[in-house]
C-alpha cells in the first residue's frame, strides 16, 4: 500500500505514516507499539514477580506458544520475544515467563513449496532466537504413537448408530495421519479432523514440557471465522469453551491477539522483516464451490462483507464471548475430539429429523421395524460435530461390530 508521503502518524505526529489501520495512520514505531500493547493487555499476568518476603524473583511459569508459522502466530512469537527482552533488560535478566514453542509438522500430509519446509524455517528461527526460547517440532504422525489417544471409530452413513472402537491392541504403528485422512470423505472433515489432531498434540507437548499455559496465535479475524465455522460444523456448544481464555485440560489458554486484525498481523511481520519465516503448505483453494471447505467459504465471506460492514468481525467475536460455557462441567468427553459434550447420543436427535426408513408398502415382508430405536450396547460417546465430520468415513483397518444393513442388502439382495 502506497501512502501519501505527507501523511503523518496521528499518535506521534512526527513521523510519516506507513500503514493505515482502523482509519488511523500509523508510523512504524507507533504501529508496533500499538499491536504489542494489545498483546500485553491480554497477558498482563505475565509480569516479573518478586517474592514479597525475600524480594527474590519468583520462578517464572512455563508457557507454550502454538506456532503454526502463519503470519499471525509469527507476529505473536515476535511480540513475546520482544516482551522477554524488555523484561530481562528491566529486571536484571529476570523474566515473567519461560517461553517454549511447538510446531506440529504436517509436511507428511501436505506438500510445502521448496524453501518453505517447516523444518528448514524452524532451524533458521532456532539459530536466531535460541537465547529466548526452546523450540520443539512434533510430527503429526505422533498422534498414533500413544495408543490411548488413537481411539478411532467408524460409523457409516446408512446407520449412524453403528460404529466400533479401534481396540488398543489392534493399533498398527504403521498407520499414518495421511491414511486416516484419505478415508474421510470431504475436505472440510479432513481439515476438521487434522485440526483436532494438531490440538491434541499441542496439549500433549504442553503436558510433557510441564507448561501451565498455551498461547494461541488466532487473530480477531480468525476467531470470528472460527465462531461461524464451528457453528456451521455443528460444534456450536464448544465455542465458549474453545475460543475464550480459560482452562482446558488443566492448562490455561490465552488468545493474546484477540483484538488484532489479520491485516494488522500481516503488516506487523512485514514491518519487522520476519515474513521470511512464514511457512504454509501449498494447498490451492479450489475455484469450484463444491470443493471448498467451510473455512475457505467463511474466509471469503468475511473478506467480502468487511468492506461493507467493517465492524462485523469484532461484533462476532464479542457476541461469541458472551455465550455461556455450558459444556465446562459436561459429564462426557467425545471419544474422538476429546472435547466435553453433554449429549450422550446426538445420533438420536439426528435420527428423528433425518429418518432413514423406507415408505411402508402393502407387502408386509418389506415392513420396517420401529422408528428411531437406538441399539442398547456399550459404545463410545461421540459428539455431534465428530458424528458429522466422520460420516461416511470407513477405515479399512477397523472392522465394524455389526454389518450395516446397506452392505448386507447390497451383497445378498437380488434385484
Amino acid at each position, binding site marked *: 500500500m502506497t501512502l501519501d508521503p505527507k501523511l503523518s502518524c496521528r499518535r506521534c505526529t512526527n513521523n510519516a505514516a506507513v500503514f493505515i489501520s482502523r482509519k488511523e495512520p500509523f508510523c512504524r514505531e507507533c504501529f508496533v507499539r500499538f499491536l504489542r500493547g494489545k498483546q500485553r493487555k491480554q497477558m498482563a499476568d505475565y509480569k516479573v514477580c518478586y517474592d514479597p518476603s525475600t524480594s527474590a524473583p519468583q520462578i517464572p511459569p512455563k508457557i507454550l506458544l502454538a506456532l503454526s508459522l502463519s503470519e499471525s502466530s509469527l507476529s505473536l512469537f515476535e511480540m513475546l520475544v520482544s516482551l522477554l527482552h524488555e523484561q530481562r533488560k528491566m529486571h536484571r535478566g529476570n523474566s515473567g515467563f519461560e517461553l517454549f514453542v511447538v510446531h506440529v509438522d504436517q509436511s507428511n500430509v501436505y506438500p510445502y513449496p521448496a524453501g518453505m519446509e517447516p523444518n528448514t524455517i524452524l532451524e533458521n528461527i532456532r539459530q536466531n532466537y535460541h537465547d529466548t526460547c526452546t523450540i520443539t517440532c512434533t510430527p503429526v504422525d505422533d498422534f498414533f504413537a500413544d495408543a490411548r489417544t488413537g481411539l478411532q471409530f467408524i460409523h457409516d452413513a446408512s446407520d449412524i448408530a453403528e460404529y466400533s472402537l479401534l481396540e488398543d491392541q489392534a493399533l498398527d504403528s504403521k498407520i499414518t495421519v495421511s491414511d486416516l485422512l484419505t478415508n474421510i470423505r470431504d475436505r472440510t472433515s479432513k481439515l476438521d479432523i487434522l485440526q483436532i489432531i494438531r490440538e491434541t498434540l499441542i496439549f500433549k507437548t504442553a503436558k510433557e514440557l510441564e507448561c501451565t499455559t498455551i498461547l494461541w496465535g488466532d487473530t480477531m479475524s480468525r476467531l470470528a471465522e472460527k465462531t461461524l465455522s464451528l457453528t456451521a460444523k*455443528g460444534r456450536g456448544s464448544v465455542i465458549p469453551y474453545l475460543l475464550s481464555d480459560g482452562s482446558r485440560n488443566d492448562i490455561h489458554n490465552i488468545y493474546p491477539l484477540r483484538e488484532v486484525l489479520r491485516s494488522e498481523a500481516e503488516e506487523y511481520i512485514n514491518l519487522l522483516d520476519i515474513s521470511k519465516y512464514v511457512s504454509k503448505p501449498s494447498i490451492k483453494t479450489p475455484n469450484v464451490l463444491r470443493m471448498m471447505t467451510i473455512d475457505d467459504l467463511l474466509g471469503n465471506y468475511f473478506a467480502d462483507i468487511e468492506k*461493507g460492514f467493517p465492524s462485523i468481525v469484532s461484533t462476532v467475536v464479542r457476541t461469541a464471548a458472551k455465550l455461556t460455557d455450558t459444556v465446562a462441567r459436561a459429564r462426557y468427553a467425545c471419544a474422538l475430539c476429546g472435547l466435553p459434550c453433554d449429549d450422550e447420543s446426538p445420533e438420536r436427535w439426528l435420527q428423528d429429523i433425518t429418518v432413514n426408513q423406507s415408505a411402508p408398502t402393502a407387502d408386509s415382508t418389506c415392513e420396517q421395524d420401529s422408528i428411531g430405536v437406538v441399539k442398547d450396547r456399550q459404545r463410545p460417546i461421540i459428539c455431534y460435530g465428530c458424528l458429522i465430520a466422520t460420516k461416511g468415513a470407513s477405515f479399512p483397518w477397523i472392522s465394524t461390530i455389526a454389518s450395516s444393513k*446397506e452392505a448386507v442388502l447390497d451383497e445378498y439382495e437380488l434385484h
Partner: protein
Amino acid sequence: MSGRSTESIRPLSSATCELCHIRKPSLRRPKTGQKICQPCFFHVFETEIHNTITSANLFFRGERVAIGASGGKDSTVLAHVLKVLNERYDYGVGFVLLSIDEGIKGYRDDSLKTVKRNKDQYAMPLEIVSYKELYDDWSMDDIVAQIGNRNNCTYCGVFRRQALDRGAQKLGIKHVVTGHNADDMAETVLMNLLRGDTARLDRCTEIVTQSTDSPVKRSKPLKYAYEKEIVLYAHYKKLDYFSTECVYSPEAFRGTARALIKNLETVRPSAIIDIIRSGETFTLERKRGTVATKLGTCERCGYISSNRICKACVLLEGLNAGRAAVQVNGSEYEPHEGAALHKRLEHLSF
C-alpha cells in the same frame, strides 16, 4: 486386522432407491444426498415433521390451531402435511387457515387467491385479517409510498405479528403455527451472530415461542425441513401454491447471510441442520436482578404491551403524522403501487 473394504460399504451406484431397495430412485434427497424414490421421500419428509411435532409435544387432543397461511410454498406444504399427519396419527387437532392481507398489489392479492383455493382443497376454515382494517386504513403499499423502500420490513414485521395475534384471538385460538423452514432457522442463527443480537441469539432456534407480550403461542413444525425438500414435496404432490417473492425485497445484509447458507449447504448438505444444532446449544446468561417488565395494555388499541403505547401504535402515529403533512402540503395523495412498481423496475434487466 481385516475389514470390509470401502466399496462394499458404499455402493458406487445404486439402481434402486437407497431406502426401500425396491423402486427406482427418482430424486436425490437434498438433506442427505441419498438417491430415493418418491414414496420413500414422502415418507421420510412427513415422518420427520411428525417426529418434530411429537418430541416437542406441540399439540394436544382437541386443540384448535391456526396455520399462518400466506399461499407460499412453506405454508401450503405445512397445511398439507399437518392435514395428512392429523389423519394418519390421529392428533385430534382442529386446523384453521389464518391469512394476513398486508395490501401489497401484485403479491398478496394473488397469493390470497391461492389460500382461498387451499381452503377448499384442505377443507379448513379460512380467516383473513387485513392491515387496512386493523391499522387506520394503512396498507403496506401506502406505507412504502410514504416512507420509501427502507425499513419497511420493520413496519410489516410489527404489524404482521400483531395481526396474526388479533386474527387468532378473533377465532378464539391460542396457538399459531408458521411455515418457517430449516433454512430460515439457520439464516436467523447466523444473522444474530453477525449482528451481535444477544437478545435473540439463544432463543431463535426454539420451536415454540411464547413471549410475555403476546397472548398467542407460536410454533414452527417445519424447523428441520429443508427449503429444497419443501419445494420438491410441493412439486411431487402437485400442491397449489404461489411462488412470487415479496416485491419489497428484504434488507441487503440478510441477503448475504442467505447466500452464505446456500453456499454452506453446497459444500456440506448437513450444514443447515448443523447450524440449527449449534444454535440450540447457545446459552446466554440473562441479567439477574432486573425488575420484570410490567405488562399492561396499550392505551390506544388495548393490545398487550410493556409500554404505555404498543409498538404498532407508535409506528402508526408516525405514519399518520406524515400523512397529515402530505395532505397539508396539498399534494395529491396516491396510495397506489407506485413504490412497488418502482421496486420491480429496479429488478428489470434487458
